[in-house]
């Protein structure tokens, strides 16, 4: 029984279910909210999932190794703040330096998380939970709880500019998804990521450098968190200490709704894209249909549950046949 074809079969089914779910919810909202299918609104939906999407690519890789990263929201906020501080200084090339600074913050936290998980084998849940509170705390300490605003106009590039009618964050998200797909599906390193999460012992016996692969996954994820923080600060026009609070839940939801297994080893970046689109369409549609905020929460939970249930039923059926 070769594992690879069965896995591919499962994945195809999972993606099929979520795409059907997206089509169904879109038809529903198109009926209830006349503006839903307009081109500006579709771009608006893409923009609304851009930051979650960028984070979800890194999260997919982390979850594929059997890990989790709860710190993404806090680290993105911290990266955005540092970027805003650098951009706000009158140094030459401040905007470019700000971008590097945001990536640097993400990278540093990624290296730390990766070393703790890969080298010291601290459970990822614990390491990143600690980083969640440390970085959120740091974000408030360095700003004294107040936002960093008054940024140069050039800083709007990453979040507010539009290129070929499509906002820059959406381009960045698509680039990140393309890169994520290529790395995980076409590069040896990517196959190792699946192997580490799928069957650690087998991967070890096959000579995969488990520590190295795990570390690199957290480092790359950190870079993406830095990028997301940069886009977030640019979108808000400020480094905001409480930005991105609890956004790790949205990101994990996108990954899981897409069909990636929280146990590691199974899933894909493309499935995550569909997961993010599904949740983005749902949030947007409920807002456009003017569903009251209390009911929105219930609807969100129920629909996510249904999507994952449908996915699970399909998956187990596939396994019985196999």
């Amino acid at each position, binding site marked *: 029984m070769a594992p690879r074809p069965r896995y591919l079969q499962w994945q195809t089914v999972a993606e099929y279910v979520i795409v059907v779910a997206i089509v169904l919810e879109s038809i529903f909202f198109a009926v209830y*909210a006349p*503006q839903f299918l307009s081109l500006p609104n579709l771009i608006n939906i893409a*923009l609304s999932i851009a930051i979650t999407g960028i984070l979800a690519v890194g999260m997919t890789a982390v979850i594929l190794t059997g890990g989790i990263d709860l710190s993404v929201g806090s680290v993105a906020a911290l990266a955005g703040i540092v970027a805003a501080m650098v951009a706000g200084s009158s140094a030459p090339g401040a905007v470019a330096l700000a971008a590097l600074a945001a990536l640097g913050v993400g990278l540093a936290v990624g290296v730390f998380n990766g070393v703790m998980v890969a080298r010291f084998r601290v459970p990822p849940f614990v390491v990143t939970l600690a980083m969640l509170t440390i970085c959120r705390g740091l974000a408030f300490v360095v700003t004294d709880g107040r936002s960093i605003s008054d940024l140069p106009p050039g800083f709007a590039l990453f979040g507010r500019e539009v290129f070929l009618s499509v906002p820059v964050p959406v381009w960045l998200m698509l680039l990140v998804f393309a890169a994520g797909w290529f790395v995980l599906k076409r590069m040896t390193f990517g196959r190792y990521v699946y192997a580490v999460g799928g069957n650690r012992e087998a991967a070890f016996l096959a000579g995969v450098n488990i520590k190295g692969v795990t570390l690199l996954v957290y480092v790359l994820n950190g870079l993406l968190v830095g990028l997301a923080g940069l886009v977030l600060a640019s979108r808000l026009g*400020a480094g905001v200490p409480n*930005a991105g609070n609890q956004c790790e839940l949205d990101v994990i939801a996108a990954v899981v709704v897409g069909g990636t297994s929280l146990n590691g080893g199974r899933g894909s970046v493309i499935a995550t894209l569909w997961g993010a689109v599904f949740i983005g369409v749902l949030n947007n549609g409920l807002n*456009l249909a003017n569903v009251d*905020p209390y009911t929105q929460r219930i609807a969100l939970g129920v629909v996510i549950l249904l999507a994952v249930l449908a996915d699970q039923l399909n998956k187990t059926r596939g396994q019985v046949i196999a």
Partner: protein
Amino acid sequence: MRLNVYALCLALLVGATSVLSGCNKGGGAGGKRIGVTLLTREHVFYKDLEAGLKEAADKAGYQLIVTSGDMDLAKQQSQIDNFIVQKVDAIILCPADSKGIAPAIEKANAANIPVFTADIAAQGGQVVAHVASDNLSGGRLAAEYIAKAIGGQGDVGIIGQQEVQSGLDRETGFKEEMKKYPGIKVAAVLNGGGVRDKALKAAEDMLQGNPNLKGIFGINDDSALGALSAAESGKRNDLVIVGYDAIPEAVKAIQRGSALKADVAQQPRDLGAKTIEAISKHFAGQPVEKSIAVPVKIVDASSLK
């Protein structure tokens, strides 16, 4: 090697703990002690409220034990339990959940510790006095400002935070006042969670869903600044946005002529001072008003000059 790592971790832990416990010392030993549990320390408003409390308490010679509930009811309940064990002389509370906090207040009542609420009211238990901004009239002021600025015609929206009573009151005041203007429709009410990134998304959806939208009321400044980000990236500088709290960043945005035109200004420092004043009265055995409203006002570019 392994031993060294453990030793290092232990040393760091011991060091960190002693630094943290060092922070808790200090303060007068003889004066009355007041336990404070704020809703959060992550909003400028609560920082200013804390500063107002501290300033007034220092003057009166009280020792404040300030904690933050971090918007978490369970955390706040255990903080109140701690205050009861510490036998503080009074408790100041900004409830994370107006109804859910009632059992904790009843516990304090049973221990004969007077409870005061600031900013957010509690429903249930015995509270000596509730000190808060007049949120209904704040919402009304915002509505009146937007109605005049858009000439009494068009759709308006609210970026709210329906989990919190003060947010709901502002929303209610706004909706009530808008009923006086037959040409204006409150077309959308969305939840921005009181934070900027969520408010930004909500405002973007609101703008897409309501092409005739002329004005947005943000029930706090993070909501309004989120809406401003949406207006700016959507090139909608014609919008009239009104915020609430007048934090420095909002004031700057108003002054530079952005779509954020005005703000309802609370006086968080006054709120802190009035709360301590009420406690002093209570300690002195004088009667205290059940509900103390701290006035709000609306500020715009002309009044901020």
